[in-house]
């Protein structure tokens, strides 16, 4: 399978391991990720809080590039996925806007590109096919699958049920790891507020960490660089702010999948986490 790949800005720096793991796992599963040449930032929350035109125009350029490639696209970052899908919906509702964007870019906007989240693309391979690739079962590892907001909301845009998403759980269960049932799988991590309202953001992160560990999880699995960085990179700051002592590793889902497929932990970026996953992985002989 060949599919266009939109990594997004975070995956080039703070979420480098997500990019590494995504590319590596995809290759091993026979999915050829073709980078959208010359892609640009989707604008994230900054654009839609500032200017409605930019909020659509920035993602639209990427959709134009993708349609020129003639490929559908897959998007690892939940926020980018959300923005691209929202822009596409907006453009479908407002033809005029599409014309304006095309006019400024000097390229036609067609709106035919289908946008998938990486989670959808990987689960779309088929759970049985995936299970067949598992050579190093993660038996004994208990994880909380965390979907956050933008992967599943709003309805019609998100790629799974907004209230009880389960696709990641089913995917992770193919590795023989155990998934816990918990109440915060679709709560907001507050990542968008780290710079604007830091305390609020950390409080949300704390609640998620507390609920996951309360449910017996050794680790959290996610599909969003913002969530990962707010929960992992900021975990120390969260502990400091609230006097807690969480040490919960936060994985990207392809990292765990890759590990179970027998891929090299270093190649999957498992050495660059703030909270070292080694201890959690010890239960599976990691």
């Amino acid at each position: 399978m060949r599919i266009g790949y939109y990594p997004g800005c975070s995956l080039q720096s703070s979420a480098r391991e997500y990019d590494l793991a995504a590319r590596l796992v995809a290759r091993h599963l026979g999915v050829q990720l073709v980078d959208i040449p010359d892609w640009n930032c989707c604008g994230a929350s900054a654009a839609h809080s500032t200017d409605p035109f930019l909020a659509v125009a920035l993602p639209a350029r990427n959709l134009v590039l993708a349609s020129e490639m003639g490929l559908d696209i897959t998007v690892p970052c939940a926020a980018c996925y959300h923005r691209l899908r929202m822009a596409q919906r907006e453009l479908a509702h407002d033809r005029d806007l599409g014309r304006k964007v095309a006019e400024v870019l000097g390229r036609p906007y067609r709106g035919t590109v289908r946008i998938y989240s990486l989670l959808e693309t990987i689960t779309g391979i088929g759970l049985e096919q995936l299970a067949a690739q598992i050579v190093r079962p993660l038996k004994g590892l208990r994880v909380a699958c965390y979907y956050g907001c933008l992967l599943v909301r709003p309805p019609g845009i998100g790629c799974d049920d907004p209230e009880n998403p389960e696709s990641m759980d089913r995917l992770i269960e193919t590795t023989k790891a155990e998934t816990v049932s918990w109440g915060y799988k679709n709560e907001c991590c507050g990542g968008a507020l780290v710079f604007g309202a830091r305390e609020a953001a950390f409080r949300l992160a704390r609640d998620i960490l507390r609920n996951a560990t309360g449910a017996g999880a050794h680790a959290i699995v996610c599909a969003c660089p913002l969530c990962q960085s707010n929960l992992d990179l900021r975990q120390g700051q969260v502990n400091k702010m609230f006097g807690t002592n969480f040490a919960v590793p936060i994985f990207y889902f392809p990292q765990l999948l890759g590990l179970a497929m027998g891929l090299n932990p270093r190649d999957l970026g498992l050495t660059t986490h703030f909270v070292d996953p080694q201890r959690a992985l010890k239960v599976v002989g990691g």
Partner: protein
Amino acid sequence: MPRIGVFVCWCGSNIGGVLDCPELARVAGSFPGVVFSTDYKYVCSDPGQNLIVESIRKHGLDRVVVASCSPRLHEETFRQALRRAGLNPYFLEMANLREHCSWVHPDAQEAAQRKAIDLVRRAVAKAALLEPLSPGRIPVIKRCLVIGGGIAGIQAALDVADAGLEVLLVEREPTIGGNMVKLDKTFPTLDCSACISTPKMVAVAQHPGIKLYTYAEVEEVSGYIGNFKVRIRQKARYVDHSKCTGCGTCWTKCPTSVPDEFNMGLGERAAIYIPFPQAVPNKPVIDAAHCRQLIKGKCGICAKHCPAEAIDYKQRDEVFEVEVGAIVVATGFGLFQWEKVYGEYGYGRYPDVITGLAFERLVNAAGPTGGKIQRPSDGKEPKTVVFIQCVGSRDEAKGKEYCSRVCCMYTAKHAHQVLEKIPGAQVYVFYIDVRTFGKGYEEFYRRVQDEGAVYIRGRVSKVYQDGTKLIVRGADTLLGEPVEIAADMVVLATGVVPSAGAQDVARMIGVSVDKDGFFQEAHPKLRPVETHTGGIFLAGACQGPKDIPDTVSQASGAGGKVCALLLKDELETSPMVARVNEALCTGCLACREVCPYRAIQAVTITERLPGQPPRERVVARVTEGLCQGCGSCTVACRAGAVDLKGFTNEQLLAEVDALCL
């Protein structure tokens, strides 16, 4: 040539103040066919009517035009006058000079006068073409079908039967009683629901005028008011009720157990069962989907133990037809399927999040817990109970915009029951508005607050399981604060929807439903128990969410309507119905497609043309008992074979011509 008389009414100054009535009468006298014309102060008064009667006699009039007010007001009055004069009452035509002319054009007298002349000319032109009409008479079958054996159907059946009429009551479940008999207590009086409904169930079974068919369904309805044909399917019970004594040996011996519908799945029953101990009839049926003998052909335990040898695994469904004169639809309600759409409350994954109706069974002494309020998950007594109102009501996003009416009150009742049965219990009720619309309801709500129920104004956004607790995340909008409660049990006030299969019943009997699937009444204020189809009446929650008093009132209303209909020997039907000229009809049946009343049927006639062998062909025929006279068919007919009596093509064209002169 007809002899037309024209009577121009002044209506005091209402018409006479704007129009020159004597002049109008004079002009009318010159219209073709008019042999007499006059004006009079008040034609509708007794002397005015007498003037008409006398003029008919004196001048040999055979058509009458009254130029006065709206025919919607006095058409019937003047028809009676014609009848008194020995004339066919349908030889009357009116010109509406008051509502459509003098009252709306008081400042344009000239134009009004010209218009009035046109209006009278139109009426005269139509009058010249009027035909004698007489209402049809149809016999009435003095038997009533009631569909649904809940409290509405029971009440309607009893009322009709008490009037000496025969009633067939058809219920699809193995027992009558419906939803009401599942309830523990009834608000606001807290009397025991079973205690007040089971005597009525028994009364139905014992009434000599009522034939009860349980475990049966109506399959087809045809015919029309006074003369319906109904096909009923008696589902196989696999138990011969003429032999069965209801001793109960079979269900104690049956090795199969399945979730018990009557207890909302909270308990279990055998494959051969009665739904509950006071069921009527008090004899079991075999649930074919779960019986080992019927599925695998191996078991036969109930047959072996039955002392009456009543078990008959070879029993088949029976289908039979009956004729009835009236039908009462009382198919009741079902619960909104919250598990399908309320993901934020867990999609039904958490065992301790239950519906109000399940709570009724939990708290009922005859229920699965013997009346102890226990958590379905671990059987423990909940200390903190949260009630969430408007689940599937007033929720446009979940497809239900309407208020279900009963939830506020039953939730208040549940809150009371928790506080009464569990010492030290904490009860929280999340609400949006508390609607206590009935007698004694507001007082009951206040009593429950006095007892300690905490009402929080706000909708719950999320419920999730955290260990053994359910975390309920809501808001107190009066304080403007979010609220979180760790609850042991959550009871959802699930909304009321039409019962499953109501749509099929509606289609079968040709009655429309509203956008939410409830049966559509003929008029929301003034004809709340009738439907647009003559002879079919509505009772209870099938027409819209209702509490028990309203349901019973409406059922008695429907019963009264049925009696008024069936106590007549014959029905008079409006003569203004469609007719088919079979000689012109090509049998395309385009007319049948547009008829809202299924009043047009295809019949085969044998045509004998001179010099040709007889030939069979299909033509359309109007069933006058069903036709309501809209005339849609007349336009659909490409051959011009269908016409509407009282509004014929010829008459309408003559009216148009007269107006455009």
